[in-house]
């Protein structure tokens, strides 16, 4: 009997001991050792992170993962994806299961300071909106009092929704699901009158409904939702890599470097371009990757504008306007510190 208990104690100790190895500092070393970047993405949101028929992931968020892999390994394909629900995502990053969370996640102060995370930038400026059936005859969110609202648990959306209805003195009945697919199915089967999430998400989800033309997104945007990639706190090197991959893509768009002309640009004598492409300076070495890191990112993934157009832009079914996501020089908010 005692023997049995003892072996149980040893077992418990082994499990408890495992906790000690989590949260090791040098993510870059771990990533290099295993040969790929483990990237946390959504469970399927067209245009941001969704798998195709062959199981290959694509989207705006996925391209950031690919960019990081291109910078670290010179190979944008060296990524493995972990599809995560809104509820699972932070725990997965905190526990070290993933190296990078690139999953339409809103940057908020509490997430930045209390969850042990750092947000490495904003790769899509979004805001929360509402989708309804056209047959309801509603054309403003202010007419939604008394409605049943479908929402995903563990999101900023859930809180914004409460605040908005409260501020406008309206009532609603929340129907909360854990997985995006469950929320979609519930809305599609008319369990709710209203679907609320980030507007980009609504456009994407609308396409997946059984009759997309019967639904409309209301004009109101009720919150600021800066979506961006997150990494664990306490590893500044890895934080810098992710941050600067994102900035390099924006800087490349600003300088007109695209995946098509990047080889030509290698001959450029413009010092700005030479710095980005690693012809001048040792910016790559400073963050622990090779000096042609940004060249690889642009060559294999593209600049921010290309990524945007390819995944969510006018040529895609989503047809999202650049709007606030245009470069700062074109009236938008996308602004990167200079690469120098």
């Amino acid at each position, binding site marked *: 009997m*005692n023997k049995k*208990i*003892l072996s149980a*104690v040893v077992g*418990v*100790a082994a499990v*408890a*001991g495992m*906790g*000690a190895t*989590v*949260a090791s500092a040098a993510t870059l070393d771990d990533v290099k050792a295993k040969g790929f970047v483990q990237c946390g993405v959504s469970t399927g949101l067209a245009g941001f992170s969704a798998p195709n028929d062959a199981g290959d992931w694509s989207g705006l968020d996925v391209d950031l993962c690919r960019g990081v892999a291109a910078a670290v390994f010179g190979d944008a394909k060296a990524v493995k994806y972990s599809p995560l629900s*809104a*509820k699972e995502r*932070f*725990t997965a990053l*905190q526990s070290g299961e993933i190296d990078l969370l690139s999953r339409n996640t809103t940057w908020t102060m*509490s*997430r930045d*300071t*209390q*969850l*042990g995370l750092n947000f490495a930038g904003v790769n899509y400026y979004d805001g929360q909106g509402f989708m309804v059936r056209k047959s*309801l005859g509603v054309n403003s969110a202010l007419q*939604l*009092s*008394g*409605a*049943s609202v479908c929402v995903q*648990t*563990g*999101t900023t959306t*859930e*809180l914004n*929704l*409460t*605040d908005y209805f*409260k501020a406008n003195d309206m009532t*609603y*009945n*929340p*129907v*909360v*699901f*854990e997985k995006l697919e*469950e929320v979609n*199915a*519930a809305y599609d*089967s*008319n*369990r709710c*009158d209203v679907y609320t999430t980030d507007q980009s998400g609504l456009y994407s989800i609308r396409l997946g409904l059984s009759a997309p033309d019967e639904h409309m997104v209301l004009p109101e945007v009720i919150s600021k939702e800066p979506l961006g990639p997150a990494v*664990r*706190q*306490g590893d500044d090197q890895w934080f810098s890599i992710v941050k600067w991959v994102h900035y390099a893509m924006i800087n490349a768009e600003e300088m007109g470097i695209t995946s098509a002309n990047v080889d030509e640009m290698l001959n450029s004598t413009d010092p700005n371009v030479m710095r980005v492409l690693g012809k001048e300076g040792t910016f790559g070495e400073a963050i622990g990757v090779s000096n042609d890191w940004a060249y690889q990112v642009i060559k294999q993934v593209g600049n921010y504008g290309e990524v945007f157009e390819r995944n969510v832009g006018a040529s895609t079914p989503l047809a999202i306007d650049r709007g606030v996501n245009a470069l700062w020089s074109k009236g938008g908010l996308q602004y990167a510190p200079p690469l120098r």
Partner: protein
Amino acid sequence: MAHQKGVSTDADDSGRVSLMNDPKARGLIFQGLLIIAVVAMVYMGISNAVNNLARAGIASGFGFFNVRAGFDIGQTIIPYTNDSTYLRAFFVGLLNTLVVAVIGIFFATIIGFIVGLARLSKNYLVQKFATVYVETLRNIPLLLQLLFWYKAVLSILPSPREAARETGVEVAFSINNRGLYLPRVVPEDGSSLILYALILAIAAWFFIGRWAKKRQMATGQQFPVFLTGLALVLVLPLLAFLVTGMPLSLEYASLQGFNMVGGWIIQPEFIALLLGLALYTASFIAEIVRAGILAVSHGQTEAAFALGLRPNLTSRLVIVPQAMRVIIPPLTSQFLNLTKNSSLAVAIGYPDLVSVFGGTVLNQTGQAVEVISITMLVYLALSLLTSAFMNWFNSSVALVER
């Protein structure tokens, strides 16, 4: 040394034997060491977790309980708004779990007993129907059954706008994809007397039962306890209702805007979860009941008949009490299963403890370790309480061996 001592001392002076050779002392020492080791392990585990959380910059502690929750919940039994605290949200989730568990246990037991008896029926149709019920429901995973009830049955019902004919028309009963709408009893001034009358009737029923039993033991005369009790429970509150001037009114649901408003609303998530849990667990209870009855040997029935007991009394006084001895312990574990299985609610959006506390609260606070530990402790406590109650019940119906 020890050997020399052993030789030189008297045979009955066993107190001086080395502690290691005294089986009782040795046992105590090893058990003490084991407890110390276990406590040390637990302590190390906890302090390790606390240190790691601090190092990773993750907030910890239980301070979040007093913070404003800021989200709404679809079904609340106690008053709750988005201005309430996380603690309140915790209790809302806990009560939602308890409600579905208690009602689920109630229905599962009733259906289970009926189906279990039906499986022993001599009627071919009844017996086969019960067999098909048991074999179908207990062999399909519960999660699939929940999804079936929720997605294949309830969500294809018409929406309230399609179901109701006109806005503002009051309906006594409506079932649509937003829930089951029933009239709600609204108490007015003076209605508390009705409640007191009901309590009085139930108490009277209990005491009449005791008195009747005593009298039967002494004199052999019987008294119709059940009929008297039923009459009391029905008549006393009705009298109170009439005497106080009918202080109850009914509120009906009607279509207002998007949804039905008013009345008593039972959400489709709750109905789906209740159906799934009760029907699934009932199939196991049916088998337990059948086993319990078959465990009572046929000789008992024959003996009872030989004493002149009618079949009805034979079941009630001879078979069932002996069958209960076999039925109750496995029944307890079915009750525990049902309570724990109610956490599958998260798949169909019913706001139970796991969904509200282990889902939304965990995410808004980010304190996974605390929230998950508390959730686990709650289920542990619920299970232990249920077990304790069933053990007490078991000992009260156990056969008294003479």
